[in-house]
């Protein structure tokens, strides 16, 4: 498959860009932040997002979604990266939805139409410590009678403070297992964590949380395979958001280079800046190619898709990091002000870089896969 968007995918991109630029530009993020909004995310916007079909992009049509693939999921994620919209998209529409599509029972899949409609927000609770380490899950699932008792502490749970249901990864005797947990269950404590980018996550503490056997998603001990599929798709989408954010910061910077004057010249005339901009352009081209390449690998069900997603996440992360640093530096003093948007891009990119494994995490996976 060619590594460029089809006509339909381009139309989806135009629709997502159009919707977000109108309904949720950066001013939307600023308002939620400055008003210290109780949720930090707009339920109204989320429903409108659902009405557009975006929240159900990967959810089968029979369950109220668009039934599309990773490339389309990435198209929307990239638009969200450009507008910095705080949105449950990644946590709910991608990670949680993917887990339920692949492993959910019929009863559990009843959540999918609600996710697609933007009526429900689900959150995936995998991480525990400061760094992403899905292969080392300390949260325990003990068998008690017909059910399980969950104990442990989860961190960096995207939108966990407003979630209508949680998907919790825990280690049972049989291995990693995923559970669908009602946040109102006794023993679940949720602490909202406001992050540097004004998006929200949560710390979730589980103390002897009793769940029935039908809370298990897929098989007991089958969580690793389910997670791998969801995390790969999530990483590929995060790569799209990183590319979108990095590219938008770059575009803003190019505009500045074309208008700001010093020493009687446009600063874009200085070769020192031109070469840095040209280098960054090249890096962004690689990030884009790695990202769509991974998404196509996922859609085609290729063997190396998980690794391709790691390569995309690592590359897009490093490139976006460079893009936002150059953006602030080339803007000079105003780049340091809260009033200018470039700082907001720097903050979002830092969060996205940490999410689902940073570049170092993914470089480690690449080294292992190549046997060195």
């Amino acid at each position: 498959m060619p590594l460029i968007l089809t006509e339909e995918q381009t139309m989806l991109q135009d629709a997502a860009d159009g919707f977000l630029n109108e309904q949720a530009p950066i001013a939307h993020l600023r308002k939620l932040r400055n008003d210290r909004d109780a949720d930090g995310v707009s339920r109204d916007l989320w429903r409108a997002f659902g009405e557009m079909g975006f929240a159900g992009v990967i959810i089968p049509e029979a369950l109220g979604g668009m039934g599309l693939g990773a490339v389309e999921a990435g198209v929307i994620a990239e638009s969200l990266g450009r507008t910095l919209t705080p949105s449950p998209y990644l946590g709910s529409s991608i990670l949680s939805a993917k887990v339920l599509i692949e492993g959910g029972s019929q009863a559990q899949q009843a959540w999918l139409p609600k996710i697609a409609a933007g009526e429900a927000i689900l959150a995936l609770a995998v991480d525990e410590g400061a760094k992403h380490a899905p292969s080392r899950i300390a949260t325990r699932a003990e068998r008690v009678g017909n059910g399980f008792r969950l104990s442990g502490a989860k961190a960096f749970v995207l939108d966990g403070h407003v979630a209508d249901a949680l998907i919790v990864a825990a280690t049972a005797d049989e291995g990693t297992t995923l559970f669908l947990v009602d946040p109102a269950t006794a023993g679940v404590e949720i602490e909202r964590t406001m992050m540097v980018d004004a998006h929200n996550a949560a710390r979730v503490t589980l103390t002897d949380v009793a769940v029935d056997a039908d809370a298990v998603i897929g098989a007991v001990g089958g969580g690793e395979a389910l997670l791998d599929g969801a995390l790969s798709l999530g990483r590929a989408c995060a790569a799209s958001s990183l590319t979108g954010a990095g590219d938008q910061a770059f575009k803003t910077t190019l505009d500045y280079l074309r208008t700001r004057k010093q020493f009687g010249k446009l600063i874009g005339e200085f070769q020192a800046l031109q070469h840095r901009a040209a280098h960054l352009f090249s890096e962004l081209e690689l990030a884009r190619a790695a990202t769509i390449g991974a998404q196509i690998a996922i859609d085609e069900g290729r063997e190396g898709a998980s690794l391709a997603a790691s390569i995309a996440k690592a590359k897009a992360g490093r490139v976006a990091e460079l893009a936002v640093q150059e953006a602030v530096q080339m803007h000079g003093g105003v780049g340091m002000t809260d009033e200018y948007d470039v700082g907001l891009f720097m903050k979002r990119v830092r969060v996205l870089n940490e999410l689902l494994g940073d570049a170092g995490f993914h470089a480690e996976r690449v080294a292992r896969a190549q046997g060195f």
Partner: protein
Amino acid sequence: MTDLERFRAETRAWLEANCPAECRGPMADDEMIWGGRDATFKTPAHRLWLERMGARGWTAPEWPAEYGGGGLSREEAKVLASELRRIKAQPALASFGVWMLGPALLAFGTEEQKKRFLPEIVRGEIRWCQGYSEPGAGSDLASIQTRAEDRGDHWIVNGQKIWTSYADKADWIFCLVRTDPDAPKHLGISFVLFDMKTPGVTTRPITLISGKSPFCETFFDDVRVEKENLVGTLNRGWDVAKYLLAHERTMIGAMGEVGGGRPVGQVALDAIGADEAGRLDEPMLRARIADLEIDAAAFRLAMERVGDQVKAKQAHPAIASMLKYYGSELNKRRHELLMAAGGADALEWEGERSHDGKTARDWLRTKANSIEGGTSEVQLNIIAKHLLQLPGA
């Protein structure tokens, strides 16, 4: 089965039957098959491999079949490339004719020129060299001084070229000459072809820091060039030159993709060994190699994506400068890491054990990647001007 799946199955079967065992596996740069009148082959099997691939047009898979090419679509060509990779087939032919001149002839050549030169190029029967740079025209290529004087039905060419790759081994040259000394520098250049055996042509190899001599100085002393061998319009050779440069840059950039030989991580493991967990026992080097492999994988996809954009007519012509810049810098990085991986062993310059210092010589050769075909700095200038529209660039 879709057409593409059928094509893959047929291609796989044909390659299995026709790619000799000797032509599979890694191939050293100095074993490449360049073809031409005085072609040399590593083994008779390599001659056969070239003949078979050439007859099918698969040395130039996407060229039209009427000029000897493979006539494949972009998607079919990708399948062929992946099937060749699958069996680790060595390139049947390395050719400036295929990589550089052919695309320019297809775009600018007359029907006679295409019929005359392209099939020979596909079959590897003619070896070309490129007469571009001069002692006074490096990065500022358009300031070339080699003169072509009009003598009615032919020109008389005088001047000197430099960095002419394999000029001493080439059959013909594609060459930039000044046909109007009074016009602005970009508007007085013509693109001509001539036989390197023409009286008045001499070459002198230049020894590089690698100890090898892939480049020559090339001198023209009253060389007769027929007018029928003008490509494109008189005095508008710069258009042809730029078009060809885009292909040259893509080719040099592709070195970042090919990387040849064994993966750096494996080379490092052999030299340094692994820890108890099976990881390369030099964590800092391991991290650098992993970063390189991520960039290399992303670059491979960027090459493929640009190819797809070209096919879909969505590509900016200057995008070749991005590939050239990134690919050549990537290749230099790869060879720095190969040197670090080899450690003291990689420092040997002579003797059988080191294949006469192959690691070190290859490393030094790559330093030219970011100079030849336009320096990295020139590529960045082009990106800034044509792709980013920065002021005054």
